[in-house]
């Protein structure tokens, strides 16, 4: 059964069926990455606006490549651009982009709820590439695709998330997604980044526990999601980095406390020697490179689903194949 997505603002409102659909629809795009010629003409003539109000290299390049490989054109807005420095409001900036008639807009912004705000004001599909500390839906989808490919399932896994969870949109989106498949969560980090309210994320009945000792957190883990230490997020008080390394770095010894086939995921960019030991980052359990490839596949799938077809025109002649 097919699903339509008007916007992709977050994982929380999606059903498990919709998520499975998105992951399944990503598979052909994983395959395309293996072709000698990786370029399609599927979205030829379409324009994807990339509005990145927060600095980002990896996610932006991933979306840009996804658009390119589908044959779409791009409009690029980056935070360093002068109009934002001149005090132009978010609304005016996106309205300017909209006046050039893109077919969808991918937005990353430091304010939680900014994509929701844009979606309420513009008549085009909005994809959230990360908003404040709220959600990062494509990250959670690519993580889920990676886990499903390696493990064969998303059901009932023990998921441990390490780091500054309070300020992590990646953590939130992952919890929202995996909770829909009955996963159990252990959140681990310094106490000030683990408020009690985190236990209320996910649908009612979701099992989430908070733990400050990493050894306890890793026992029995199937999936370990290592978060970045976000020095740019200016939360007070800052924790000395050496403290963090001592208490929370994912080392090979600590990794052994988890299940032998436990997966290690990281949203990137990694700081080797800070939150993750290089041996773990490069080891067989690490999925970081697949995450990048899957990120491309998931973003291509989303762009295809949200801008690929039109709903307003009547079916054409060859539509007997369209319905297939």
């Amino acid at each position, binding site marked *: 059964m*097919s*699903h*339509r997505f008007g916007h992709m603002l977050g994982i929380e409102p999606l059903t498990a069926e919709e998520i499975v659909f998105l992951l*399944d*629809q990503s*598979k*052909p795009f994983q*395959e*395309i990455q293996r*072709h*000698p*010629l990786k370029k*399609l*003409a*599927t*979205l030829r*003539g379409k324009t994807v606006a990339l509005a990145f109000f927060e600095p980002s290299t990896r996610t932006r390049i991933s979306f840009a490549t996804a658009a390119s490989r589908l044959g779409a054109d791009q409009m690029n807005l980056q935070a360093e651009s002068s109009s934002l420095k001149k005090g132009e409001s978010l609304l005016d900036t996106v309205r300017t982009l909209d006046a050039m008639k893109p077919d969808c807009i991918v937005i990353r912004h430091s304010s939680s709820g900014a994509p929701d705000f844009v979606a309420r004001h513009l008549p085009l599909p909005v994809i959230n590439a990360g908003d404040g500390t709220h959600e990062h839906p494509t990250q959670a989808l690519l993580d889920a695709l990676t886990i499903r490919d390696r493990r064969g399932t998303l059901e009932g896994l023990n998921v441990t998330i390490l780091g500054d969870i309070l300020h992590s949109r990646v953590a939130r989106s992952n919890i929202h997604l995996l909770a829909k498949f009955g996963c159990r969560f252990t959140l681990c980090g310094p106490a000030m980044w683990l408020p009690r309210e985190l236990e209320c994320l996910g649908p009612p009945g979701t099992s989430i526990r908070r733990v400050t000792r990493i050894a306890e957190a890793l026992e029995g883990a199937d999936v370990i999601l290592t978060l970045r230490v976000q020095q740019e997020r200016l939360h007070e008080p800052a924790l000395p980095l050496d403290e963090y390394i001592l208490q929370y770095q994912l080392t090979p010894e600590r990794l052994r406390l988890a299940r032998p086939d436990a997966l290690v995921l990281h949203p990137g960019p990694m700081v080797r020697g800070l939150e993750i030991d290089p041996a773990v980052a490069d080891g067989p359990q690490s999925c970081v490179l697949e995450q990048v490839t899957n990120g491309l596949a998931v973003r291509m*799938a989303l762009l*295809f*689903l949200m801008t*690929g*077809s*039109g*709903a307003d*025109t*009547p*079916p*054409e*002649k*060859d*539509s*007997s*194949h*369209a*319905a*297939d």
Partner: protein
Amino acid sequence: MHIVEKSQLMTATEIDRTVQRLAHEIVEKSGGTANLALIGVRRRGVPLANRIALAMRGIDGVDVPVGTLDITLYRDDLSKVAAQPILQSSEIPFPVDDKDLVLVDDVLYTGRTIRAAMNGLFDLGRPKRVRLCVLIDRGHRELPVEATFIGRSVQTSDAEIIEVRLNEIDREERVVLVERVS
């Protein structure tokens, strides 16, 4: 607007006989099956390709490989498709380079599907030769595409639709001519 069945074009037996005949024809006109491969265009081209390959085993004793191709990403008319098409994966478990390929589909009409299929094939490599095998050719070509192996040619009008129904997908086995009626 609804669909009305106008006539039955082929029975189950006729379909089977045609498939057998097509298999023979392909083998005959290929100078052997050594480098041959079939590619079924999703959806109904796939069971047809499988059946032709099965029939070929009976003739030459050779297993001709069968791949499946989903053309959704290669269509030139995506924006005109009302329903959100579901992507299936393509599965071509053999290298395409230098292969003697036969694309298999149920109905040849405007030719756009086959053009998209060729785009998809050429993304994978450089086949030696690509020929087309269809169960029904209903005319009304919009592109210069021709089928080498044709089950049956049928004259149709634009308002008519030919529906090939196969057990593997539709749980019945026949070809019907239907019409859109307001």
